[in-house]
């Protein structure tokens, strides 16, 4: 694929200028509403309406006219890459296509102009949608109770960890302060457990790429609060010993937390409850096709077993007869984790997606995602790439290569990633999981066609050949993107995080 990203260049040093350079500082702008003259004639002016010492004097924002705002942000958009641009194999992020029908529904004024504190009589439609989403998630996972409040997966993890903590405290098991986490886990697992007050105990990965059961057995004990597990794990490998693991943790009095980031692999094939899971979060923006929005918003529903339902955040969405309502009467609740009820607008998109794929779609999604990954992996292995772990067994929705063998040609995973950019492909997740050297974590999802997968692996093949013949060419990549490789040291040495910091720095030079 030939690719040249749009480049709007003002000068040798500057692409599209910032709004601070485009606008007039401190004055101008576009008014969007005029005070009502009838109100002015009654109330007068605003002088008396703010205490003198609390009046704003200057506003150092740029003033711009609407056409220039439109052009500026349109140019910026052209210097960005989305799922609709092309293949986006960003492992563990499940960059699947976001159906437009779901977005249209979520942008209805009946949804987006609804105040969260409206009497529930006027919110029956949205409550019904959220309730139905909970029911579908329950059916898919086998976990009977859900909260839709967490704003993202990591916040779901925090909720889950707090629930586990609350449950043990409620049973007088104060000593259970250790959370076991496999070294291959997402970084957020460790951080969430620590935020919830746990000591993090790491268990290693076996040569098979799964949890080392003996090492796990050695750390499980009366201080074990639980384990946070991702299945399939971040290597794209299914933890086949999952029943043994959950028995081990349960018999020691611990609970099983499931990180749903990789649920796309097993949708419709395995229920979490059958694996012994007690608490889980599901990412609406991964498995259930809500768009990622450049980094958010997402939504992270949390499901629990019957035993843990009394600890869920308030309020819960319930149904009585034909009426939907909020239940604040949850005596052992961990409290509220965000204001209001969750990212409703995101949740509606996932509701719409599940309605569109239906029962039969669940397994189609996962099957094709897994088929695509296995096909791509096989092709890449045939081209000489090395799979980090578990190459003798099928992978699930993603797989991790190690590009360590390219080091002898002076080529790193980063270089290969940048070369993919030059071919119009979004690179995979690199240098993760941390246990794999020169990691290349690839997730094609079910949204790529056979032709697109062939295109991607062909690009990988060419890059590998180039690495061996002319590694310097790879070091120069990317050259078809709007900028070339960036100076990361400069960016971090004295960080410039806002325009005012930049101006201050320039003045001091």
């Amino acid at each position, binding site marked *: 694929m030939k690719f040249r990203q749009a480049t709007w260049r003002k000068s040798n040093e500057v692409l599209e200028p910032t709004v601070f350079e485009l606008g007039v500082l401190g004055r101008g702008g576009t008014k969007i509403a005029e005070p009502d003259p009838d109100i002015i004639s009654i109330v007068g002016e605003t002088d008396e309406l703010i205490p003198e010492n609390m009046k704003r004097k200057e506003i150092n924002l740029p003033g711009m006219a609407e056409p220039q705002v439109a052009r500026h942000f349109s140019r910026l958009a052209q210097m960005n890459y989305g799922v609709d641009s092309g293949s986006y194999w960003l492992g563990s992020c499940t960059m699947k296509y976001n*159906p437009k029908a779901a977005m249209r529904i979520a942008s209805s004024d009946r949804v987006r102009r609804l105040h969260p504190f409206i009497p529930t009589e006027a919110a029956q439609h949205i409550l019904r949608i959220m309730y139905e989403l909970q029911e579908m998630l329950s059916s898919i996972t086998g976990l009977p109770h859900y909260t839709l409040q967490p704003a993202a997966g990591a916040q779901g993890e925090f909720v889950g960890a707090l629930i586990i903590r609350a449950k043990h405290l409620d049973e007088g098991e104060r000593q259970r302060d250790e959370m076991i986490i496999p070294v291959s886990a997402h970084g957020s697992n460790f951080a969430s457990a620590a935020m919830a007050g746990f000591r993090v105990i790491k268990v290693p990965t076996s040569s098979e790429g799964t949890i080392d059961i003996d090492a796990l057995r050695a750390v499980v004990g009366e201080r074990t609060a639980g384990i946070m597990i991702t299945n399939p794990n971040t290597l794209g490998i299914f933890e086949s010993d999952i029943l043994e693991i959950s028995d081990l943790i349960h018999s020691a009095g611990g609970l099983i937390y499931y990180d749903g980031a990789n649920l796309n692999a097993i949708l419709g094939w395995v229920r979490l409850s059958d694996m012994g899971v007690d608490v889980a979060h599901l990412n609406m923006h991964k498995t259930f096709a809500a768009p990622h929005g450049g980094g*958010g918003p997402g939504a992270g529903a949390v499901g629990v077993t019957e035993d843990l339902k009394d600890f869920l955040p308030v309020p819960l969405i319930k149904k009585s007869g034909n009426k939907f309502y909020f239940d604040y009467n949850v005596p052992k609740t961990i409290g509220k984790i965000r204001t209001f009820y969750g990212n409703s607008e995101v949740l509606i998109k996932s509701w719409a997606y599940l309605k569109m794929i239906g029962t039969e779609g669940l397994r189609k999604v996962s099957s094709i995602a897994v088929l695509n990954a296995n096909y791509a992996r096989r092709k890449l292995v045939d081209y000489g790439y090395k799979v980090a772990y578990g190459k003798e067994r099928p992978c699930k929705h993603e797989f991790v290569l190690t590009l360590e063998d390219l080091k002898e040609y002076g080529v790193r995973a980063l270089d290969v990633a*940048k070369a993919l950019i030059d071919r119009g492909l979004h690179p995979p997740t690199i240098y993760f999981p941390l246990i794999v050297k020169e990691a290349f974590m690839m997730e094609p999802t079910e949204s790529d066609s056979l032709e697109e997968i062939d295109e991607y692996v062909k690009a990988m093949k060419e890059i590998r050949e180039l690495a061996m013949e002319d590694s310097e060419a790879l070091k120069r990549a990317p050259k078809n993107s709007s900028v070339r490789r960036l100076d990361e040291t400069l960016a971090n040495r004295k960080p410039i995080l806002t325009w005012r910091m930049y101006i201050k720095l320039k003045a001091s030079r």
Partner: protein
Amino acid sequence: MGLIPNDDPETIRIMLSYIGVKDIKELYSDVPNEILLSNPPEIGSPLKEADLSSLFESITSSVPEIRLSFTGGGIADHYVPAIVDEIVSKQEFYTSYTPYQPEISQGLLQAIFEYQSLMAELLDMDVVNASLYDSGSALGEAARFSMRVTKRKRIIYAKNANPERLSVLSTYVSPLDVELVSVPYDEETGRISLASLEAQLNEDTAMVYLENPNFFGIIEEEAEEVADLVHEKGGLFVVGVEPISLGVIRPPGDYGADVVVGEGQSLGGYLNFGGPSLGIFAIKSTRKMIRQVPGRLIGMTKDLEGTRSYMMVLQSREQHIRQEEATSNITTNSQLMALRAAIYLSLLGPDGLRDLGRKILLNTEYLRRSIEELPCFKVPFKSKFFRDLPVVSEGPSWKEVNLHLLYKGIAGGFVPSTIYKEFPESLAILATTERHCKRDIDELIDNLRGFCS
């Protein structure tokens, strides 16, 4: 086909044969048989796009439609300029993810840098992060941030702050060894009581949290005195702000805030039944404090040809590098909402924001006067208000009033006692925004007057 291009028997056959397996089930051979489902769980028959649309129409049609929203309590029905919707729906922004590969993500990176920069000017702060989820989690993170920076454990908050946010705060710090202390407000003015604050402050105070305008919509006039008191004890002054007020109200960075948090939904975002919204997190810059900031930060740098460019910086604070030592667990944030705020602030500029603030001030004052003229409703505090207005009913129940209004297409006041028992049942929080003109407010007042006879 449909959403899944390779869902076609011939394509599947080609791919399976290349892999060397006979069916897809073989790709699940590593899943223990005991847990492999024979049939997928039931979630209903698939709906085609047009049928989904009809279903949605039928679900919404039975619910009363709102024309005018006067509900306050933290967020309100602000107008979203068309250009904001137009730009955020561009797929390059909408369907992309965290800009891990900066070379093909310059557009988003620059837009976030501009968000950080515009917000910094609006708040008069130095550093703004790329976004947190909402005002509640931003406050929770601010508390944990203050405890890390000061190595102290006393968190003091003003009781006239938004109760939703306070309840999230208490969840966020619940696992920590912390003292959570409230300071009452003056019954007459609704503003923080300085004497009570002084009595609660000590050398172990990590932070004091004050909202401005506060939960009652009241402008806190003594904010600067609060800052001085906190700083005397070496604690951090954390201000919760309604950013749309800052076209007319003094920015917190100018009266001593060390940290600013807030809800950015008003800047080009919809109500969305409460989410997504935009968690604002800003600090005054010191090297020590920057290293403790939660969440993503975008910084300026150069590419190898010397072109100014942008990338994620100080990632060693974040979970994907630092794991359990990270400053926060946040990864997915509220980026698209921050983009909305960037477009909104660029469009309005200084004049647009000033004028908008002026309109909201005038509307709030007109609403206040109109309420005061009613025989059975009153405003319980003598102060200056912005957007939100506390209204006490001296007779009719708010529940009845709100239901009556609802069937006229009007969303009435938020009654905090329905969730937070510490508030009297007679209190509701109303809000008026730039969407309202005199006729709209008069319509609300006429309906309220009907309850006084």
